[in-house]
């Protein structure tokens, strides 16, 4: 941190930096999947309560993101991708980030309890704690399996959305959890292949750093298979209609094709990793599309 940056951190944090602390881009996917979980639930939800539940999911995700950045300020400073975040850039004190993160966490859980039910609030609390304590504090710096287990934190939103609407857990929301849980490793490992140097410099044991690029490509292909099974299961088990079935089969076929292209790639330089970049970009679209198909299916076919 430069002297100028240190001086800057003495200033009160700007609202723009507080917003940046919540990782708004990650939050968009979390909010969308949470909303989809709420919309596919087989019970009508009052619009105000539905809005409040999705708001709580967004606030909880933002709080987890803020606490993650509070704990990882030293790591973020070492990586090009994250060096301009408010903490490593010295635009905010760590204490501000901690207070903001804890405050937002508590507020989101209490509001969820008031607006929805105890179970939804409890799962929201578990998801925040899982992301901060299990993933950020415990796993991220210790094991190459960090995002495999840590991926569970990002898989909670559709489950929370469903539980906020129904008050209980059934097969479909568990499958939605499984889709995101199994999608996370291929998604993050594709990214970590072409930003490997960044992770290596920061000392984060991401799979390509620890096990090499060839092994990572094999793992991407291997994790794609159970992800496809989980994504097709709602249709195969008769929990959704043909709209989701067709969309799911098509999206998973493209995902598999791109994962096999990654497996076939032998490049070691990030510049030559077009298949990895394509898979990473498609994986984001994939998750949006598969959840959108689920909602369309539920609303059109009832």
């Amino acid at each position, binding site marked *: 941190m430069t002297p100028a940056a240190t001086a800057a951190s003495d*200033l*009160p944090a*700007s609202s723009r930096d507080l917003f940046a602390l919540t990782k708004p881009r990650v939050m968009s996917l979390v909010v969308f999947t949470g909303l989809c979980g709420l919309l596919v639930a087989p019970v009508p939800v*009052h619009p*105000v*309560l539905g809005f409040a539940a999705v708001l709580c999911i967004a606030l909880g995700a933002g709080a987890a993101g803020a606490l993650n950045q509070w704990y990882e300020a030293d790591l973020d400073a070492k990586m090009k991708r994250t060096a301009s975040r408010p903490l490593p850039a010295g635009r905010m004190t760590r204490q501000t980030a901690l207070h903001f993160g804890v405050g937002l966490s508590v507020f989101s859980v209490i509001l969820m309890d*008031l607006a929805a039910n105890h179970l939804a609030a409890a799962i929201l609390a578990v998801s925040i704690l899982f992301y901060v304590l299990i993933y950020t504090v415990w796993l991220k710096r210790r094991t190459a399996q960090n995002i495999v287990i840590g991926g569970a934190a990002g898989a909670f939103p559709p489950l929370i959305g469903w539980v906020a609407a129904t008050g209980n857990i059934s097969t479909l929301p568990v499958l939605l959890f499984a889709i995101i849980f199994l999608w996370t490793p291929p998604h993050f490992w594709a990214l970590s292949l072409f930003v490997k140097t960044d992770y290596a410099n920061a000392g984060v044991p991401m799979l390509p750093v620890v096990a090499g690029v060839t092994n990572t490509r094999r793992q991407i292909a291997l994790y794609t298979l159970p992800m496809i099974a989980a994504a097709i299961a709602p249709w195969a088990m008769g929990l959704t209609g043909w709209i989701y079935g067709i969309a799911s089969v098509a999206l998973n076929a493209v995902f598999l094709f791109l994962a096999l292209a990654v497996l076939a790639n032998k490049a070691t330089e990030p510049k030559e990793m077009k298949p990895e970049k394509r898979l990473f970009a498609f994986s984001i679209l994939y998750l949006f599309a598969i959840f959108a198909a689920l909602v369309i299916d539920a609303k059109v076919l009832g």
Partner: protein
Amino acid sequence: MTHDEEEVIRKRQRERSRLLAILLGAFALLMFGITIAKMTINQ
């Protein structure tokens, strides 16, 4: 502390106070909405 630095601090304090006021107003409205919604459901 220079005059410019003091000005930046005041500006950020004003900005945060305004934002907090808006958020508190939104929270009050949301709590009102939740209360009405729960009463409607329970009827």
